[in-house]
């Protein structure tokens, strides 16, 4: 890029040149508007964040039934708001690495069974108390209590005992787990004074913003916490506000009308229209979420691997990606992991639509008659259309699919994980181990493909305890291959998080872990004056 452009873009940022003039000069130098605009963006980042103002987000996924308790935090609004007021032990960076937050150092014994976290000194809670190792232990205790309704209960079940000693927290696991620090990055595990045992809904932690407004299903607000331990690193606006806008059209209109500065969940079908709105930038990033077709490996006719393979080969993934997600995603390869995960092997061959091979295997399986596939609008956006497209591509391989459209009410209690062939979604997990242990080992409650294979369980367990990263990567490759070639999972595609930011919003950094910059959009972005 020419030096002149960089020089000029700096001028725009400090206000000596208007954006329009800059774009004009950039065009004269033969640079497209998109690149020129992104230049201003990077120059603005280099100039540093601007402080002050009120930053507003309009988000889908909030109900009047929500509470602030991080343990019960399931909706998108509470997730993003939790990142603004809450503080975790460790946090996932956009590149998949871990950043130490309340935990200053994390170390383990050689067998990855005993983990020691040194708690950073001098971090202050919003109520003025200092974060102590006892608070950390109390938090983990509350979330791992058998009676607890915490969504993090499952990932904490591997803990055998924990104690605070000096400025450290020592945790002993039942089995070795090299991924333990990643589990601590779970967004439910917000460290609260005395673990939130006194009042889980108080909204007090050590994040960059203090809770000032808590109106469930309507709006949330925070003001900059003066004693935030990272100072100015996060939290550039004086105040933040989240307005709950569940209606997609209203959300887009609010961004266009300038009532909010950023929105989440832009529907793939309107992305191209939103792109054309002046001042609005689409922020999309490949995530870990995927939309599976689940077959029960222990239920006829899906207990036959030839049939399962036929059904996998009869899927035209490119077509589904194109028509259902309008290209905002990436094709799946019949295992639940993609490049957004650490230790992903990118050399596994992509499965392609092969009706001849599918027909051959289908014949070999000996099955005849139609196969019942259950779908519903709530499985994922476009799930009914996806089932119909799949029905057509299966017909090309001579396989008859019968579609049953189930009511959205009760889909998750009556159909998913109950019926042998249905559509669903998975939001992805922090690590490969977490994903496999949540849904694909024999003992898992959510084994929604009934993949019951002791040898596979052993492979997952062995990889979990392996500290050598190269060996681990190879082990996960083997696991993926078993899943891909013998599992009951068909993955048409992985989705993308599609958000949008409005005029003057700077500092946006996409994070594949979650939408809205991993939930930090309100803390890392600022408003250009």
């Amino acid at each position: 890029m020419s030096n002149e452009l960089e020089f000029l873009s700096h001028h725009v940022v400090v206000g000596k040149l208007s954006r329009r003039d800059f774009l004009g000069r950039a065009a004269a130098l033969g640079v497209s508007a998109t690149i020129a605009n992104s230049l201003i963006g990077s120059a603005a980042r280099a100039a540093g964040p601007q402080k002050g103002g009120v930053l507003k987000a309009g988000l889908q996924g909030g109900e009047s039934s929500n509470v602030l308790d991080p343990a019960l935090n399931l909706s998108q609004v509470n997730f993003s708001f939790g990142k603004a007021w809450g503080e975790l032990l460790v946090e996932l960076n956009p590149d998949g690495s871990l950043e130490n937050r309340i935990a200053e150092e994390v170390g383990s014994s050689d067998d990855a069974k005993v983990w020691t976290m040194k708690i950073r000194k001098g971090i202050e809670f919003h109520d003025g108390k200092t974060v102590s190792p006892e608070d950390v232990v109390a938090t983990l205790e509350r979330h791992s209590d058998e009676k607890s309704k915490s969504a993090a209960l499952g990932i904490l079940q591997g803990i055998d005992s924990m104690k605070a000693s000096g400025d450290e927290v020592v945790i002993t696991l039942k089995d070795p787990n090299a991924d333990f620090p990643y589990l601590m990055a779970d967004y439910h595990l917000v460290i609260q004074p005395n673990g939130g045992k006194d009042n889980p809904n108080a909204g007090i932690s050590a994040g960059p913003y203090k809770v000032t407004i808590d109106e469930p299903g309507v709006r949330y607000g925070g003001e900059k916490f003066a004693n935030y331990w990272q100072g100015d690193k996060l939290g550039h606006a004086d105040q933040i506000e989240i307005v709950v806008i569940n209606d997609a059209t209203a959300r887009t209109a609010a961004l266009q009308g300038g009532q909010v500065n950023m929105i989440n969940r832009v529907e793939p079908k309107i992305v191209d229209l939103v792109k054309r709105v002046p001042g609005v930038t689409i922020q999309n990033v490949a995530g870990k979420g995927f939309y599976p077709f689940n077959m029960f490996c222990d239920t006829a006719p899906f207990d036959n691997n030839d049939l399962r393979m036929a059904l996998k080969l009869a899927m035209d993934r490119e077509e589904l990606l194109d028509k259902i997600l309008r290209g905002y995603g990436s094709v799946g390869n019949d295992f639940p992991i993609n490049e957004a995960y650490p230790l992903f092997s990118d050399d596994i061959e992509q499965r392609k639509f092969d009706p001849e091979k599918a027909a051959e295997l289908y014949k070999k399986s000996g099955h005849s008659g139609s196969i019942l596939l259950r779908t519903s609008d709530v499985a994922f956006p476009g799930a009914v259309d996806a089932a119909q497209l799949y029905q057509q591509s299966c017909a090309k391989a001579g396989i008859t699919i019968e579609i049953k459209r189930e009511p959205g009410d009760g889909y998750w209690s009556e159909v998913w994980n109950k019926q042998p062939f249905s559509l669903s979604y998975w939001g992805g997990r922090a690590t490969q181990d977490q994903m496999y242990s949540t849904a694909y080992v024999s003992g898992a409650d959510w084994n929604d493909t009934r993949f019951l294979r002791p040898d596979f369980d052993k492979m997952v367990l062995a990889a979990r305890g392996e500290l050598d990263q190269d060996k681990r990567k190879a082990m996960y490759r083997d696991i993926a291959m078993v899943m891909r070639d013998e599992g009951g999972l068909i993955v048409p595609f992985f989705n993308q998080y599609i958000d949008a930011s409005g005029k003057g919003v700077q500092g946006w950094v996409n994070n594949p872990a979650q939408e809205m910059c991993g939930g930090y959009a309100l803390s890392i972005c600022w408003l250009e004056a």
Partner: protein
Amino acid sequence: MSSPILKLVAQRIALGILLLLAVSALIFAGTQVLPGDVAQSILGQAATPAALANLRAELGLNDPAYIRYFRWLGGVVTGDLGTALSSGQDIATSIGSRLWNTLFLAFCAALVSVPLAILLGLLAVRYRNGWVDKLISGLALASTSFPEFFIGYLLVYFFAVKWQIFPGISTVYEGMPFLERLQAIALPATALTLVVLAQMMRMTRAAILNVMQSAYVETAELKGLSAFSIIRKHALPNAVAPIINVVMLNLAYLVVGVVVVEVIFVYPGMGQYLVDHVAKRDVPVVQAVGLIFAAVYITLNIVADVASIIANPRLRHPK
């Protein structure tokens, strides 16, 4: 006022209470046959069997239905609507501000739409069968025929996105300055006005036209009164009963039928609250909101009945 009329009014109120009781039983029965289960809905796809069992026990979902009905009814009568299953908050408190929001929106919409509808109705009668009448009727019918969400989106597109005069989302909160609040609800109130306008206007027009054909109006005309005086002094008072009825029906609609408009404009009222909790199978909230809606509907209907009784001279002075 004579005693027969008091008796009639008392009968209506007693009937209303009985009706409300019947509705409460219906609501309770209705919420029992919903598919799925509350605990499962609260925890969603992320539910473990252990957490499910704990939650079910805590919520008392294992008791038989009739016990839960009478426990609930006893609470309602004493003003205790219970706590929301999903958030653990007191329902009466959470409903309080939302009910106020809904009533405020309904009140503002009514304040505009009722006088406007009656005035337009009178105008239509005055210039009946002329182009004014046809224009008024045509526009009112058109605005009613469009679905509410379509009108809502049209308003958002022009007033919020294109011209940016009014906000497209109507988030209101406690302590919001009154003028800002009015500005925030401008679009939803307009949408509601457009929806309810036609029926009231047409009813006013029809009722008055009916009276206009009677002999005493002809007499008034022969007396030399102006057309407007005839309508105001002679026709309107005698046509008021059906007009009150249709106005009350529409007021009831403004309170209980605004779910779609509230969702489009993100207005924190009862409708949105109900939708959220239906999705979560939060039965106590659904029951409470259902009962409040039913009470509003029945009360307004009683008011309409009583007002027509009082407005009707034949009932006021029975032979």
